[in-house]
């Protein structure tokens, strides 16, 4: 398995969100962006996955536009910039061209489903990669993404 480049967020989520409405897809990708860019020193451990939907909810309730929501997440969870260029461009596209009201409503009402989907997508994608890495110790393990 090639490990020189991380897959993009859209690639990881692709087959789990294929037949969802567009605002659901946008919301899920935004939560995934928060997940990969969060401040890993603070947001880790078992309670992280319980905290993530709560923060998503608070930010969605207090923001009126998606850029505001992202700003709130930056404040609350120390989100930085995604490391892949494609992800950075995709994030900018999501924040500027989505239907703000619909996506914020989805972030508000579907937060648990979004978080579980992101968690499962990362588990499916990188759990398998970690297992291969464990069987082939020559390859460097990519645990940083988890």
């Amino acid at each position, binding site marked *: 398995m090639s490990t020189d480049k991380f897959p993009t967020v859209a690639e990881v989520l692709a087959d*789990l969100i294929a037949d969802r409405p567009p605002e659901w897809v946008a919301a899920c990708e935004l939560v995934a962006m928060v997940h990969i860019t969060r401040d890993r020193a603070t947001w880790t451990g078992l309670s992280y*996955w319980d905290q993530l939907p709560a923060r998503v909810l608070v930010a969605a309730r207090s923001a009126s536009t998606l850029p505001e929501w992202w700003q709130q997440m930056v404040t609350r969870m120390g989100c930085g910039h995604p490391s892949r260029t494609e992800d950075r461009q995709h994030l900018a596209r999501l924040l500027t061209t989505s239907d703000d009201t619909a996506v914020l409503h989805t972030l508000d*009402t579907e937060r*648990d*489903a979004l*978080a579980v989907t992101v968690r*499962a997508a990362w588990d*499916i994608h990188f759990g398998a990669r970690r297992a291969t890495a464990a069987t082939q110790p020559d390859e460097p393990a990519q645990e940083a993404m988890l």
Partner: protein
Amino acid sequence: MSSALHRIWVAAGSPEPNWAGRSKTPKPPPPSRHGVCALTGQVGEVVDIRHVLSDLFTTWDRLRWRHAPDAGLSIPAAWAFRHRPLQQQPHALTSTGFRAVQPSELFDALCTLEDDSFVSVPQSRQKHLVPFAELGTVRVDDRTLRWRPDDAHALGTYRGLRRLGFGETALTQPSPPWPTLSRLPTPEKRWVLVHWADLDQWRTDPDRLDVAARATRADKEQPNP
């Protein structure tokens, strides 16, 4: 409504109503006369209402013809009110007759619900269901559910999720619980995430979830096989 109750009574084998109630001593049938059935409006052989319903009965407004001068209750109506298992166990009217069903039979009956069949699923075990039967529907405690084709689909999804280890309470939640989900192999995980939302319509209408829960439990062992 009248024809539905009559059909169910005939499909059950035209049984005599349980006149004795809970007492062990057998009781002779009360005298019958000619009159109007207060429940179905059918004119024919009826017995006085006081022989069928006790003083504790409250929902008189559901007996539409109770004010008719010669109102009584017909034999099928008396059977439907007085046969206690009808309030306690799920029953189904299928091509093979009307009888109490085990969860697996209930599942089959719900999957093949036609315009001339009927399913009753008690929830509180305290309410009369069969007297208010309508053909082609599912009756729960206080409502008649129209069973649409996509309900049958959702029931299949429900059973799939139950077999993967999700409990009845977990299925009422908007997202799958991680401890159960993380134990599944990858293809099943993907299937669960894609299909969990299929039950969203039911989650706003818990009666259907109740019916599905009754239809996907393990069968009880038969007392005398």
